[in-house]
């Protein structure tokens, strides 16, 4: 493996998460995906290990991981449960990032909550015009009503919700504690089945200045803050791609057809090699993006695009190598495909990411 020069701490994190996934998650992988195992219980165990607040400062009970360590943690978790990895990413790569930058009076409380294992939701700023919520300004508050579709991440009974709202070119992120004006509507998704991806319906939600966590003067500035999430997405993608490869590789060694293990056939070898090449190329891109003293925004966007595409590629090929067995739920290849495609579409469209990357390159 390239970039193997992990620090002692990074190696330790990798080791700890591997031990955790092997003993706690692997035995219930499929049950977790199908909602038959208690996700909350697993998340609490992650919190006990200290990873719930991976990007939260130590003074608030967090692990205060450097970016590479954060990526290693996400990748290792995603290898056996991408949903769990995504919940960790939303809580840290979005919620903790925005809250840490905020001067809101409750910021320390919120950060402590995250580190203790409370999961916070994050409302996705809709990409399409007709989905943007309707906002009315009324004296010292604004009133929000959702129009068509709006989605949230970590929307499974969240302890709080961060909601970005755009008004005259500016983006404000509001903190919403429990409110009867927001309904979290569970919706079946292709993959990441227990990550709490849901629709939200907002009717007459009043937001006052006191709830504003942070304001960005432009959508551009807000977008730049999402780079931590994007590298996290790229790390989860590596985890899914790696697991898809390992599963297919093992199967190809064991499965015999025409008197030989199918791994001896060049068409199977080609699929496996292409999976491996892309995954390792993606690893270089991601580690390159996060190892620099100042994360390179262009590389972050490239890693996000390339690695999520790679995960879809590997998920698809993993199913293909396994043939009929890849298509059924007794094996995990089909889940890698579903999780990978889901991951690729989260928060923002790959088209939008390409637009941003082009701006960086220009």
């Amino acid at each position, binding site marked *: 493996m390239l970039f193997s020069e992990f620090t002692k701490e990074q190696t330790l994190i990798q080791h700890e998460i591997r031990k955790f996934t092997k003993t706690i998650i692997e035995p219930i992988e499929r049950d977790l995906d199908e909602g038959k195992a208690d996700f909350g219980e697993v998340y609490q165990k992650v919190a006990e290990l200290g990873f719930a607040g991976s990007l939260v400062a130590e003074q608030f009970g967090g692990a205060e991981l450097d970016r590479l360590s954060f990526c290693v943690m996400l990748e290792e978790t995603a290898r056996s449960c991408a949903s769990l990895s995504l919940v960790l990413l939303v809580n840290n790569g979005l919620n903790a990032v925005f809250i840490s930058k905020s001067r809101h009076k409750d910021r320390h409380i919120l950060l402590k909550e995250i580190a203790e294992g409370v999961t916070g939701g994050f409302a996705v700023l809709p990409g399409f015009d007709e989905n943007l919520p309707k906002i009315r300004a009324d004296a010292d508050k604004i009133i929000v009503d959702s129009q068509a579709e709006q*989605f949230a991440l970590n929307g499974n009974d969240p302890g709080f919700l961060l909601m970005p709202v755009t008004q005259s070119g500016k983006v404000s992120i509001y903190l919403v504690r429990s409110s009867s004006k927001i309904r979290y509507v569970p919706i079946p998704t292709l993959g990441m089945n227990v990550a709490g991806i849901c629709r939200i319906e907002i009717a007459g939600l009043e937001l006052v200045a006191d709830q504003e966590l942070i304001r960005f003067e432009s959508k551009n500035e807000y977008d730049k803050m999402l780079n931590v999430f994007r590298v996290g997405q790229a790390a989860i993608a590596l985890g899914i791609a790696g697991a898809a490869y390992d599963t297919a590789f093992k199967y190809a060694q064991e499965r015999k057809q025409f008197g030989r293990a199918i791994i001896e056939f060049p068409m199977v070898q080609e699929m496996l090699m292409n999976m491996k090449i892309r995954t390792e190329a993606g690893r270089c891109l991601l580690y390159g993006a996060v190892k620099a003293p100042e994360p390179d925004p262009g590389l972050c966007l490239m890693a996000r695009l390339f690695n999520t595409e790679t995960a879809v590629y590997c998920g698809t090929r993993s199913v293909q190598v396994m043939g009929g067995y890849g298509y059924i739920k007794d094996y995990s290849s089909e889940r890698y495909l579903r999780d990978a495609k889901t991951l690729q579409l989260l928060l923002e469209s790959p088209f939008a990411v390409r637009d941003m990357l082009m701006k960086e390159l220009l």
Partner: protein
Amino acid sequence: MIIDEKYVTFRKKVRDFAEKEVGARAAVLDQKHEFPSDLVKRMAELDLLGISFPKQYGGAGLDTLAYAIAVEEIGRVCGSTGIFLAAHSSLGIFPIYFAGTEEQKMKYVVPMARGEKIGSFGLTEPDAGSDAAGTRTTAILKGDKYVVNGAKRFITSGHVADYIVFTATKDPSLGYPGISAFVVEKGTPGYNAGKEEDKLGLRGSITSELNFEDCEIPKENLLGKEGEGFKVFMATLDGGRISIGALALGIAQGAVDAAIDFVRAHNLGGRSYGKSQYVQSAIAEAATEVEAARLLVYQAAMLKDRDLPFTQESAMAKYYASSVGMKASDIAITIHGMAGITAGYPVERFLRDAKLMEIGEGTSEIQKIVIARQLIGK
């Protein structure tokens, strides 16, 4: 593409049914793993369950092209209903029509083509997938009966099928020459459909294990002669590939249509979403490839209808159309953005359904081998 008027009329009839009756149910069938028995009855009423078989055998007396169009149109709205239709006609009925005696045809083909009975085909085994010569299910002649032992896997419509064509060998060490094809009827002692698979897609269709335990089958249920099983299933798969190609084509078309509908209904940053060159490029690419897949699928069907060799063309049609099925549904999801991964839209279902087309009835890798052998020689 330019096509004879009678096919245009036929397509319209199937599309009306598909959109009004099948499309409305597709999402629920998928979510609840529900087999659409009522739609099977409706397809029988509309004479869609034996399209390419002669009227004297209970069919509609049309041809392979009409059949491909029907599978395409059903697949455009529901992969599960589409795979049922394809398996029933190409795998259930065809081998008996192809290799059966007149008596066998009257007994089995007629009720299946009329849609009164459901057909299925058992070739794949737990350890014999791409390598069908590795068949381990045995059929040993004892007196006037064959005694069958073994298991089949990934059998479409296994649980609901009344008549199942299957392959078995008199001696696993013989390879292809040992294999014969038989028909077993549901309810025959010693035969039962075992575990139902929980699958990535096509969740409204049934995929089963079949088990044979000292199952006694009358001697007259042999299809063709002993040792001709290879010939029967190769011919069956040649035709089956056209229907899987057609189904993949239908799913791909459904995905492109869904993407276009979505694009038309949305604006991005004050502009029509369709003005985005990303969207234009993706839709143009997918739509072009769908059209190319259609030409390949229809060409294979027309060759078969003219009794010309079509092995290479049907393998090309399946190989290409199934990859277009994946590409078009992947593009359609991406165009939908986050909405695309939710069950609120059909595109995520299209992707899950499309993946089987690259696997079932010969993986893409096997198709490439078939094509290359035709081109290069053995």
